[in-house]
């Protein structure tokens, strides 16, 4: 009798723990809200930031609650979408840029959608070919060499002006950039050199850069915050790869003028797009959100929140931006199709060069 009772107890114990685990694993999935169109999930990159009031406005207009799912950098974001194609992790995507756009399109991640009403200036940022029917440009930014003006003034050294200047021995050991293989601005800079020196000439340029002691970090954070003389960590290199929008952030407290500046002749333009994912549960809501993203209110909030320029160029920029963060009049470009076709080869070659 007793042993049978024991066995029963043991089985009960097993049953209780099993149920517990099932309950645990069962209770977090709340797909009901998504189905009835009240929640919109947007996959984006880690740099997403938008003020609460703007997002509240969308909720007020449409009744849709937006859930932001950050998914790493642009590469990671795109590749996650590729891997989950057909059963997407979100309804829409924001943040795929011109370096990854054609991969997303070619892999069939996106649904066709073009907003009916769009500001005219969006045209200049649109993808060519059939790309424009998948992705809508939302913002852009210029990845440029930044200089610590204070440092150059203090050391009485003339500032470099062009990409060519950077290999001048005068600037030996003064530059730091994030790696093309691990950072999207890093990749942008590699593309700038490819666009400027051509598909064969860029390697010679990089050899000279390396000879001139360029430091290559894993990410933008390391380069800007640790190694750059004007960054948070007070590093020792006054030339850094960053954005044309970075200088306004270096206006000292009580000062009126930034201590850094961007070299507008060295810029590669990154354009960020939004799109609807193929197989989304709630494509209409994403379409509404894309329309919302290209309206004036959202566009005007972009600079302060994500440090990018609105694709609707008729929108006014913040005061210090218009003064201290001009965009490049003539950015270096490489076509998205070329990027998708050659990315792996370029990165392999670049990695071979830099790890030699």
């Amino acid at each position, binding site marked *: 009798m007793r042993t049978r009772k024991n*066995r029963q107890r*043991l089985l009960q114990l097993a049953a209780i723990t099993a149920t517990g685990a099932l309950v645990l*694993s069962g209770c*977090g999935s709340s797909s009901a809200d998504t189905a009835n169109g009240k929640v919109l999930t947007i996959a984006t990159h880690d740099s997403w930031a938008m003020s609460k009031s703007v997002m509240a406005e969308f909720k007020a207009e449409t009744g849709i609650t937006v859930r*932001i799912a950050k998914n790493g950098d642009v590469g990671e974001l795109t590749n996650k979408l590729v891997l989950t194609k057909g059963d997407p*992790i979100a309804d829409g995507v924001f943040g795929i840029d011109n370096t990854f756009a054609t991969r997303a399109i070619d892999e069939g991640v996106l649904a066709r959608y073009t907003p009916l009403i769009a500001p005219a200036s969006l045209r200049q940022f649109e993808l060519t070919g059939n790309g424009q029917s998948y992705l809508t440009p939302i913002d852009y930014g210029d990845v440029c060499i930044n200089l610590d003006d204070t440092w150059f003034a203090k050391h009485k050294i003339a500032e470099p002006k062009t990409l060519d200047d950077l290999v001048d021995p005068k600037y030996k050991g003064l530059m730091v950039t994030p790696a093309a293989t*691990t950072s999207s601005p890093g990749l942008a800079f590699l593309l700038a050199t490819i666009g400027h020196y051509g598909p064969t000439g860029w390697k010679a340029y990089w050899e000279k850069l390396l000879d001139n002691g360029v430091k290559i970090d*894993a990410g933008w954070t390391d380069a800007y915050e640790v190694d750059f003389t004007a960054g*948070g960590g007070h590093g020792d290199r006054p030339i850094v790869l960053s954005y044309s929008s970075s200088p306004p*952030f270096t206006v000292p407290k009580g000062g009126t003028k930034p201590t850094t500046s961007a070299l507008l002749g060295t810029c590669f333009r990154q354009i960020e797009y939004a799109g609807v994912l193929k197989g989304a549960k709630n494509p209409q809501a994403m379409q509404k959100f894309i329309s919302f993203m290209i309206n004036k209110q959202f566009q005007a909030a972009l600079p302060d929140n994500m440090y990018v320029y609105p694709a609707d160029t008729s929108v006014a920029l913040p005061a210090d931006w218009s003064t201290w963060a001009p965009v490049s009049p003539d950015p270096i470009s490489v076509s998205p199709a070329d990027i998708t076709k050659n990315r792996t080869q370029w990165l392999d070659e670049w990695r071979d060069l830099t790890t030699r």
Partner: protein
Amino acid sequence: MGGRWIDRLGTAAVAAVPLLVLIAFFLYPVGGMVARGFWPGGSFHPGGVWDVLERSRVHRVLWFTVWTAGLATALAVVLGVPVAFVLHRLSFPGQGLLRTLIVVPFVMPTVVAGVAFRELIAASGPLGGLHLDGTPTAIVAALVFFNVSVVVRTVGSFWEGLDRRTEEAAAALGASPLRVFGTITLPALLPSIASAASVVFLFCSTSFGIVLTLGGLRYANVETEIYQLTTQELDLQGAAALSVLQIVVITGLLVLSHRARRGSPALSRQARPGRRPRWRDTAVIAWSFLVVAMLMTPLATLVEESLRSPDGWTLANYRALQTTGSDDALLVTASSALRNSFVIAVQAAGIALVLGVIVSYLVSRRPRTGAARRLTGLFDGVFMLPLGVSAVTLGFGFLITLDRPPLDLRTSELLIPIAQAMVALPLVVRTVAPVLTSIDPRQREAAASLGAGPLRVLAVVDLPHAWRAVLASIGFAFAVSLGEFGATSFLARDDSPTLPVVIYDLIGHPGAANFGMAMAGSVVLAAATGAAMLMVDRFRVASVGAF
């Protein structure tokens, strides 16, 4: 007749719970990701995977992984063994604090430690003169920083339980202290050193954040290579090849570590209190303080940075934790992220505890037949796997496999606690199982013969012995979960991020204020994990943090 079968069925049912969770949240996702490499475009092409192993870059990556992990392991042992002696064989005021401090690096988020290290060794940092920045030396130093505590805890807890009289007998026979150490103590410690070393090697060879932050692109190990191949190049064949390689090596190491542990006596629960230091301990004590100081230097840098602003010393960075950063860099305030971290850590610790206690209970039984023993060993080993498998592979695996009912969890809020629980689970098992194993099985037999059923036996025999270890393991799992970054960062992050993720976001945004706030957040996080570990130390469970 059928009684034995019903008993076995009961055991199997209990074992099934953690096993199913492990299969669902670890083996299945990792397997799914690896399968994508073997079946590119839907058809089986294993050749592509093996071709990867012939790439010269892969060879370079493998060699780098092996030598940095090997060197870091050796250094961690050399640095850690004397500290294990001082913290576990001597007794002096302030020892508890030192024991806590030494574990803090282990539970620190790698992203925070990575930045702290760079601040320290960057040309402009306090150790800039050593020109370590961007060198493999820096990577090895950081790996050592994270793993010394594993050596100290593992070897220390074993050392504490060693019968001192063996050494005293040798000393009385004429062996000098050095000689006693070389001929008696060291050979006796070898199993624990081997066990610690294999686990440290495992951690080092799968280290991700450190190598990525400090190695830049110049240096890559298998883990960062998997990251690059997966997230940037979408080269799933390459990633699969490296993941499989990783699993093979890790299985080998776990077997080695298991063997090393098996030869060693059960953990002593009644270790004699340590003796007071003598003059001749001066060198080894000095060494220990030096090691602790080395471990604390990067943390001190964090504190310093957190108190600094462009205008001088300030607490503003800490006040800013109530905000979403300058220019709304964050979706939520850092303090609410801290709250999220706490909630998630409680959930993760809860899950890890339930599963870990079941696993510990099962592996602590001593089966009579060889087959059952091997099965138990296998069971034990399988739950150690999450320690050594790429977080990238796991995170991406979650995305592609957990998308169908009943496991439609990709966007579930429980996914992060579950993923963290998978990371904390081995630590819970390694804390609780040795204590349960050390219980004389005759006590359970005596209780059962007096009429106690299995649950009652648990309550009257196992629980009184193990409750300290169970509580300590909760604290440890909690601390680990608080600082967990790798697995968390590859899961979709939404409006309720954890503090490590927020810190990562903050240092990714320009502006000195955000950077200072990130540093302040890091200090808060380190203090929270430190407090959890301080509580754990109060339970005086030797097996916490030991392998």
